[in-house]
């Protein structure tokens, strides 16, 4: 083991088994096996570089321990370190980075109850208060067999309040459940079963849908059903077109990234295709963690084969030899569906030699950042990299990398099949195609809605049934926690990149969270501040310190003392925006600033 020796703790056989199931049995005493083989006394061909080359399996190994034992003991961690030749301090740094990994004893049965903004609009506070009364989160009195804990947004905002159930063991179970009541949580804590929720069927007529047309209507577990609905025709067509022509179509379609940054996809692809260095990687960013966002989950749960097909097309066009799909740790069903889709497609020899590997996150918002995701796949703390170099030049494992969001990729088969002209005919001149909007909060029918760019905010809210009768619309959060609030008098806003930019707001990841007059908006703003404080990776000072100062200032406002705190918020917000390494810090003040200046939540401010 390098540098620092772990404590002398030994792994249990259960821990050893969980790791060996992932990594295979050790080959010698130098990579974690027992001593005593005479050959080991005189030669080692493992435990050095070869073991270190598998560093990228660190997070999967930590997850394996977590899901088998329920937490990561020092003995278990030490064994992983022996197997991968990672210094224990380094591995500890990784283990403690991810919220779903526990480094102190934790019962095998855990319910993670969302208390984030969308769920707050739908009674999460009452839910957690009831649980606090009847099922305290922690107890030092006796070993507990289960516990519940609070969680940031779980991406189940269409069925708020939501919870993630994790049951560790030889056959671990994980379920993301919605419409949770205190009774339901107690039942599960007491050993009751949890199951995946019933599939969602979009309320819109199928004729209005491109990306969602199969969701809820075509069996997501059936390759035959997928093919019968036109699946893999686009990949076939792409192969006859050739890579350059595919990239040309995607470029001409003016498809822009749907993860939040809206970068032209064709330019990314072209840049990677022209990089001489190999291998090149394709990373599908399915670490959808922006509070209020659940569109990628709906796509993956409901139409996983389309993501596999889209990735295969992207890889074919850009010359990527290998693909990763990084799915946030809170999406067990999406991971299972995609795993099945990948295997079925491979077995049917549909994806050629292109291999896709699923990597699951560990509960870290920041890993959705396009370079943090590389660090996480490589087995490190998900800390964003400085740019340049940009991912297209030096991304995953230092190689040229395409990183695209799930929804972005889901557009690709349509562009290939229908052509860029047909694709761009929908939407506005600068924002082409349709967009998935995540309607949540106080609307009658929360869910993912697909609409052409340019749909008005009011029309979208109408599609979702509007606020309940007798209630008044108070605000809409556009773009998520990193987005901005808009006022009820701004419902004519056209939802395109250019219109939202002109209005000083953003589409971000497509969040449209509706807040009515039942909600304590200031508490919501405080929750956003707490979210950023909790999710800051801590790497750069403006964000690490700024997110804490911001939350403190908002807490002080709650206790009076307004003017100086608002000035401080503005100062800290400017520092985070100007000086943070990545988008997290740069946007951490965005929603809060809009609550102050656009909603005048803290009174009239003439700043």
């Amino acid at each position, binding site marked *: 083991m390098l*540098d620092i020796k772990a404590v002398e703790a030994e792994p249990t056989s259960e821990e050893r088994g969980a790791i060996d199931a992932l990594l295979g049995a050790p080959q010698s*005493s130098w990579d974690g096996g027992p001593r005593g083989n005479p050959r080991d*006394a005189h*030669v080692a061909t493992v435990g*050095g570089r070869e073991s270190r080359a598998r560093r990228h399996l660190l997070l999967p190994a930590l997850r394996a321990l977590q899901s088998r034992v329920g937490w990561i003991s020092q003995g278990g961690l030490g064994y992983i370190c022996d197997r991968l030749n990672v210094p224990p301090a380094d591995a500890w740094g990784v283990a403690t980075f991810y919220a779903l990994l526990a480094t102190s004893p934790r019962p095998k049965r855990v319910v993670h109850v969302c208390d984030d903004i969308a769920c707050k609009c739908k009674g999460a506070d009452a839910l957690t208060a009831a649980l606090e009364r009847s099922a305290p989160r922690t107890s030092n009195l006796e070993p507990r067999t289960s516990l519940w804990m609070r969680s940031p947004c779980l991406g189940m905002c269409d069925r708020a309040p939501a919870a993630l159930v994790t049951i560790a063991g030889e056959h671990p179970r994980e379920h993301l459940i919605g419409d949770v009541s205190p009774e339901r949580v107690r039942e599960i804590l007491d050993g009751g079963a949890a199951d995946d929720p019933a599939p969602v069927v979009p309320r819109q007529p199928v004729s209005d849908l491109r990306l969602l047309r199969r969701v809820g209507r075509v069996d997501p577990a059936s390759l035959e059903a997928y093919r019968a609905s036109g699946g893999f025709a686009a990949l076939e067509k792409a192969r006859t077109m050739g890579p350059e022509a595919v990239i040309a179509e995607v470029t001409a379609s003016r498809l822009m990234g749907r993860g939040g940054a809206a970068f032209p996809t064709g330019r990314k692809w072209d840049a990677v295709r022209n990089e001489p260095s190999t291998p090149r990687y394709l990373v599908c960013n399915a670490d959808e963690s922006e509070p209020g966002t659940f569109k990628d989950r709906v796509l993956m749960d409901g139409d996983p084969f389309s993501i596999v097909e889209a990735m295969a097309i992207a890889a074919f066009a850009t010359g990527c030899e290998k693909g990763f799909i990084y799915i946030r740790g809170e999406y067990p069903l999406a991971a299972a569906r995609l795993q099945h889709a990948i295997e079925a497609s491979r077995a049917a020899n549909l994806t050629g030699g292109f291999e896709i590997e699923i990597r699951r996150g560990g509960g870290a918002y920041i890993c959705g950042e396009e370079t943090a995701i590389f660090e996480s796949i490589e087995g490190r703390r998900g800390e964003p990299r400085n740019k340049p170099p940009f991912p297209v030049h030096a991304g995953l494992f230092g190689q040229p990398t395409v990183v695209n969001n799930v929804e972005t990729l889901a557009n690709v088969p349509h562009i290939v099949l229908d052509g860029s002209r047909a694709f761009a005919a929908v939407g506005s001149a600068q924002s082409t195609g349709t967009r998935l909007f995540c309607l949540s909060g106080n609307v009658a029918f929360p869910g993912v809605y697909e609409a052409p760019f340019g749909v008005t905010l009011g029309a979208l809210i109408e599609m979702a049934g509007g606020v309940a009768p007798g209630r008044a619309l108070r605000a809409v959060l556009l773009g998520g926690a990193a987005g901005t609030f808009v006022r009820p008098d701004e419902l004519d806003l056209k939802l395109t990149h250019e219109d939202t930019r002109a209005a000083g707001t953003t589409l971000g990841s497509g969040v449209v969270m509706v807040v009515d007059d039942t909600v304590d908006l200031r508490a919501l703003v405080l929750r956003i501040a707490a979210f950023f404080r909790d999710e800051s990776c801590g790497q750069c000072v403006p964000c690490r310190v700024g997110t804490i100062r911001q939350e403190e200032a908002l807490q002080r406002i709650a206790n009076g003392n307004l003017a100086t705190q608002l000035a401080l918020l503005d100062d800290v917000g400017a520092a985070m925006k100007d000086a943070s390494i990545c988008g997290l810090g740069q946007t951490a003040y965005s929603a809060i600033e809009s609550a102050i200046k656009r909603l005048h939540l803290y009174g009239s401010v003439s700043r």
Partner: protein
Amino acid sequence: MFGAGGGTSSYREVEETDVVLLWGSNARDAHPIWFHHLLKGIRNGSRLYVIDPRRTSSAEWADVWMGLNVGSDIALANTMAREIIHAGLAHEQFIANGTTGFEAYREAVESYTLEFGERATGVPGDAIREAALTYARADKAMVCWTLGITEHHNAVDNVLALINLALLTGHVGRWGSGCNPLRGQNNVQGGGDMGAIPNKLPGFQDIEEDHAARARIGALWGTTIQPRCGLNLTQMLHAMARRDLTALFVIGENPAQSDADAHHVEDALAGLDHLVVQEIFLTRTAEFAHVVLPAAATWCEGEGTVTNSERRVQRVRKATEPPAGAKDELWIISQLAKRLGHDWGTPTAEDVWNEFRVVAPHFAGGMSYARLEALGGIQWPCPDESHPGETFLHARLWQVPCGGRPAPFSVVHHDPPVESPDAEFPMLLTTGRRLESYNTGVQSGRYDSPLHSGEALDISPEDAARLGVESGETVSVVSRRGCVIVPARIDPSLRAGMVFMTLHFPDEVATNRLTIDVSDPKSGTAEFKACAVRVERATRHDLAAEGVVS
């Protein structure tokens, strides 16, 4: 080697080579700066073999660790050579052009079959073969070594065995291929460059064989230089014991604690008629001195140059004034000369350097202070001011016909350590260094730090279990020459039968009371790497004898 006393390759080449044999070196701990260059090489894809009886922290970065028996280096090298020859991978064109003595060498290694090699070294034959063929087939490959090769009674033969491999495969005299002894201090190389070795004049001009140099330098210095080697340190100690040598001037060295069989060294120092020690600290050796000359620490309190492991001569600049009473070393030497009847005036470091450039023009003629400063150091040789310095040595061996004298193969044979474990002393003690300490601790041991862990006996889990010793428990280590009391530390990098200590804390644990005073006749280096010992749980009597308990 081949007439030049330094490593052949540049640091940049370490970063760009394809295969590295790191032989008898835990560079990650003992040469951490150089190891950074190696890490870059590893990152760039070079394949690393670490050849060391212990699976060291360097070995943890390797593709392959070969844990040979202590002192079986020649057996391993010769076995690899035979495999290379039998696989048809000897570089015939290079051998014919740039070397001599191949036939005798080929015959000599013929008896080193894989079976013999495996028996002598302990390393499985398939691993030996794989390493040999990978080294031979590489486009660029280098062998790098340190004290694991040289602290043996057959140090020079060990080095020659490694050089033979380079000659056999043509891995010398080309970019990325070479033979590199890693230097243990920032200026070990510089000491040799300046002639501070018994058989060479400055610039590695041979004192016995190079008549022209002797005459030329003698004329410059106004004296006649005798064609006679001086004594190396081991020979001096023996001469002191015989009282053939009765006065000693020691500059920046701590033989009382750094040399093997410390009891004998102390006796020898105590028996001198006159001992002068020039030092920056009052060392154990200085305690024996009749006169101590407190010196400035030249690396920061004086001017001069140092030469690193890639033969790069670099300027040292004065950054701070020495403490009161400590004098510039050049001033001390000049004053000594004056009192001995030679008035050298008060030369500056640059004056001395410029004299060196005249004394060794082919070596350093082109290295003016101005150029050293402008170019950030220059790698020797650098004969004139238009010369950029050499990134690697011995390209001449590839010239057709060979430029200068061809490099000779040397016939060397396996010769195990003088002491091997027996019934009375059943374990083998090997010594070395740890990352956070330096040699006898004169420079590294004086700081009061809570992180200093002190000396320990590293012992395999198997031996610890057999002896019933827990980690941290005090044990006594006994050799034919002495005994020390030391806490045990269980170290899985050791196999059964082998224990490890350092000489970093001689005041607490005088490891060199255990080591054997046999040395290589050619280099004078003592066999620090192997002596037979017995390890026992310390009794109350042992502890009392050591003053640990009363």
